[in-house]
């Protein structure tokens, strides 16, 4: 029997393997220390040719393009893109709605919503670190102290990240609306989005305006998608204590449609604010949303 942290690492590693992720690409130039795989915002000492410019006194003569001089009879200096590392911030929703443990289908294995988020988060962390970037964690809380792990690279960082994720307990109101962006790296917000779309997207939009590359990973438990309960249930909201009787024979279709509408609203709000939107069915293979993350990352990035 593995320790929880080790089991989590194994599970996340399997997801990374199935997704074939060896780094988390970004879609736009990043700030960061040189030597990474991401395109930097400045021209610099990378190996990827970027452009020519006229020679000016003081330029390094090693960068003179002699062949261009032979063709054009003009001194041109070659410029190269900078290759930088970046910081990736995971922002995990730790509200009470995340604490849902329920079989995906009748008689099936229980699906732990928060655990599935942990696996997905750690898989992202593993992929990020594999690309040489640093991974950090924020678990904002609306009514309590927030958990924060500054970005770090290396395998030790993923271990720390796994431990931190295991410390997250679903409780309280959604904290994402009160989250404030830090730095200008990449931000991946993992949430069930059970808050008004504008409230969820507003802090992410702020981070996007601050120069970060922001992705909203919207994950839902299968029951939250289909509402296919077998019998009449008393559904209690852990955040408010409110209880409602749910008769699936009469209310299932309508509830599922309302959830679809909410997903569309969330996606629209995110994309309107320049935030990428990735949906995750937490009852299915988590490699799928990870692959989508890799595929939907911005064009022009360098492959890891």
């Amino acid at each position, binding site marked *: 029997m593995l320790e929880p942290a080790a089991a989590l690492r194994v599970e996340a590693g399997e997801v990374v393997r199935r997704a074939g992720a060896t780094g988390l690409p970004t879609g736009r130039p990043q700030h960061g220390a040189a030597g990474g795989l991401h395109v930097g915002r400045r021209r610099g000492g990378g190996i990827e040719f970027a452009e020519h410019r006229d020679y000016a006194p003081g330029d390094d003569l090693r960068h003179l393009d002699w062949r261009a001089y032979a063709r054009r009879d003009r001194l041109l200096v070659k410029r190269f893109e900078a290759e930088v590392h970046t910081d990736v911030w995971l922002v995990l929703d730790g509200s*009470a*709605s995340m*604490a*849902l443990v*329920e079989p995906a*289908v009748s008689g099936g294995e229980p699906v732990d919503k928060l655990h599935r988020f942990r696996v997905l988060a750690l898989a992202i962390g593993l992929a990020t670190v594999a690309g040489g970037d640093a991974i950090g964690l924020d678990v904002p809380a609306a009514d309590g102290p927030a958990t924060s792990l500054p970005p770090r690279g290396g395998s030790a960082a993923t271990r720390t990240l796994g431990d931190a994720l295991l410390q997250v307990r679903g409780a309280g109101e959604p904290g994402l609306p009160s989250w404030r962006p830090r730095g200008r790296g990449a931000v991946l917000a993992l949430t*069930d989005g*059970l*808050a*008004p779309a504008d409230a969820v997207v507003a802090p992410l939009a702020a981070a996007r305006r601050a120069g970060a590359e922001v992705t909203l990973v919207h994950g*839902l438990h*299968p*029951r*939250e*998608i*289909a*509402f*296919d309960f077998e*019998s*009449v*249930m*008393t*559904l*209690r*909201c*852990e*955040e*408010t204590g*409110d*209880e*409602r*009787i*749910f*008769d*699936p*024979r*009469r*209310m*299932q*279709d*309508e*509830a*599922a449609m*309302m*959830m*679809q509408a*909410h*997903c*569309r609203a969330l996606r629209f709000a995110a994309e309107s604010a320049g935030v990428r939107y990735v*949906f995750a*069915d937490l*009852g*299915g293979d988590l490699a799928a949303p990870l692959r989508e993350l890799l595929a939907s990352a911005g064009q022009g990035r360098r492959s890891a």
Partner: protein
Amino acid sequence: MELLRPELLPFALAALIPLWLHLRGRRHAPQLAFSALRFLLEQDPARARAMRLRERALIALRMVATAGIAVALAGPLLPSCGPAAGQGAMLGDEPVDLVVLLDDSLSMRAGTGGESRFSVASKRAAALVASLPRGSRAAVVRTARPADVLGSGLISDLRSVATELRGLRPRASADDGERAFALASRLLVGSERGRMVLLSDLERAGWAAVQGTAVAGAVARGARVDVVAVGGDVVDTAVVSARAEPAPDRGARAVRLFVTIGHHGPRPFVGTLLVEIGSRAIRRGVEVAAGAERTFELPVAADAPIARVALLGGDDALPENDVRHVRLAGDEAVRVGLLNGAPRPVPREDELFFLRRALEVGAPGLGALALDELREADLTAERIAHLDVLVLANVAELAPTALAALIARIEAGMGVVVTLGDGAGRAAVLGWLGGLLPETLADAQTGAADPGVRQADLLHPLPITVALARRLQPAIPALGELRAQRRLGLLPRPDLDAHVALRWSDGLPAALGFARGRGRIVLWGSSIDLDWCDLPLQPGFVPLAAGLVAAAAGQGAERATTAVAPGEPIDLPRREEARTLEIRDAAGAVVRTMQAPLDSTASRRRWRAVAPDAPGVYEAIERSAAGVLEQRVLVVAPDPAENPAARLAGLDLPEPTATAGAASGSARRPRWPVAPYALAGLLLLLAGEGLLLVRGARGGRGGRGGRAQEAA
């Protein structure tokens, strides 16, 4: 609503089961920490409200459905007027002799939904006759005045009876319930399988007066009586009466028009009273409380002989009684002479004191009366020439000249009312009165005290007796407390029994009618002296006095002053040389034509016809071989007894009817069993709900993957 199996009704409490299941389900439903639903419902409050409402509606529907099943199984029976309803139960499978009493009075013209009550009733009657078992016989009695038997009585050709029924139309007169039942009873005399079915709207005016004797008589003869109520209560406003009185204080041609408006309905009537006199029209706003009558007085100028009075506005199921024509000539009041044979100095002891007070209010059908008090010395041909009616109260003897003048005037058309008294005892009856009457009386004997009076006998061969009985009929219910210490029973010869219109309870005649020449003689078999009886103190005295005078006045006086009701007999004097009488309507079309008989004895020199069915103004033109002899205006008004059309609060026919109908409770009120229909409806409801549930369950179970994909 009645139930076939009321013991099953408590099962309606099963309606609580769905509610209990719902509450129990709430309590026992597994709990789950699940925030998504609360969040979604908060996001869309309108939809959340709709879902909650739908859930409650569903529970209510289930409760109603459950209760409905219990009620339906209990077998509710509802009233119906459908032609086939209850026929089998009413008539059975054995041949019967069926008399259909079909109400064809004015109020049967009312209706809702485009079909009149009469149409419903006649169709029902035709279906009833057509469904009779082979070997049955049927007859139809129309109950509107004058009630009559359609065709030749009971016949076995049921198809022709049904055809005749379909061809009938309602008349404009009131019901003649007593006579109708009497005629029906007479048709069923000797029948062992007699049945009567009355199809009527049970209009208050026509049937409240049925006292039960006729029905009881019919039942006593072995006939079973069933009553089928047709139509519901309606809103009706009517001109109940309209009369004109001279108003000399306002000018020579001025008259006061008294219009009484009756209204039956849940709300007060607010409308306009329109009076048209010649080319002039007078409008006046009127308001009549619900269920009330109100008299409006309008001073008008008699620019034309006839005024048309009409009601405008308001809901009205029976517009036929909204219009009435009234003669404006103010000098045609019936003139009544009053003669006391033994006047007394103390007014309250004088017989004429009470009689004058009673007649001052007028008489139904005659309007106002012009009273003229006479002394014995006034009994001369000149002095009584202008009188229409002369009342002789307690006259002990008459001089031969006075008697001769009186007889001459009676034969010329005057009516005489004779009441007895201390002076006018047996000697007077057998003396001067014997000379006055066309037939001599056999004897007069003193009767016992406090006998009370019987019902008037309406089935007489003599018109005067029928008219007298009909006039006295309204007074009889108010004479129940009559105390008569002294009476003088007038005994006509046995062959003159037909003259007795009303009898005391011990069989002695109380009121007799005789015709002499063109006039009438009415005898009241008691005194109006308080020493004889307390008749003047009875509430029935006023209608009794009016009835005696009206019967004596005859149609001649009535024609001069007021309108005749549709279907009423018209009795006009006929000149010796007259050959034909034409009755034309306002458009000039001939409605009736009568030929004078060849053997015109003095007593038969009358035109006797039946008034047209449609109210309005007519002209009666008397012609001789040489040309027009006389033109009279004839006003036919809706029967005031039918105005306004107000239904009996309940089926108030007497107990024998209930007993007769008790053999088949469903026959008295045909009913429609709702159980099969209710069950079918409830099953449909349940099937619909089940379909929705199945559809919802399928939609929910099939689509998680699809939904996830779609949401993504």
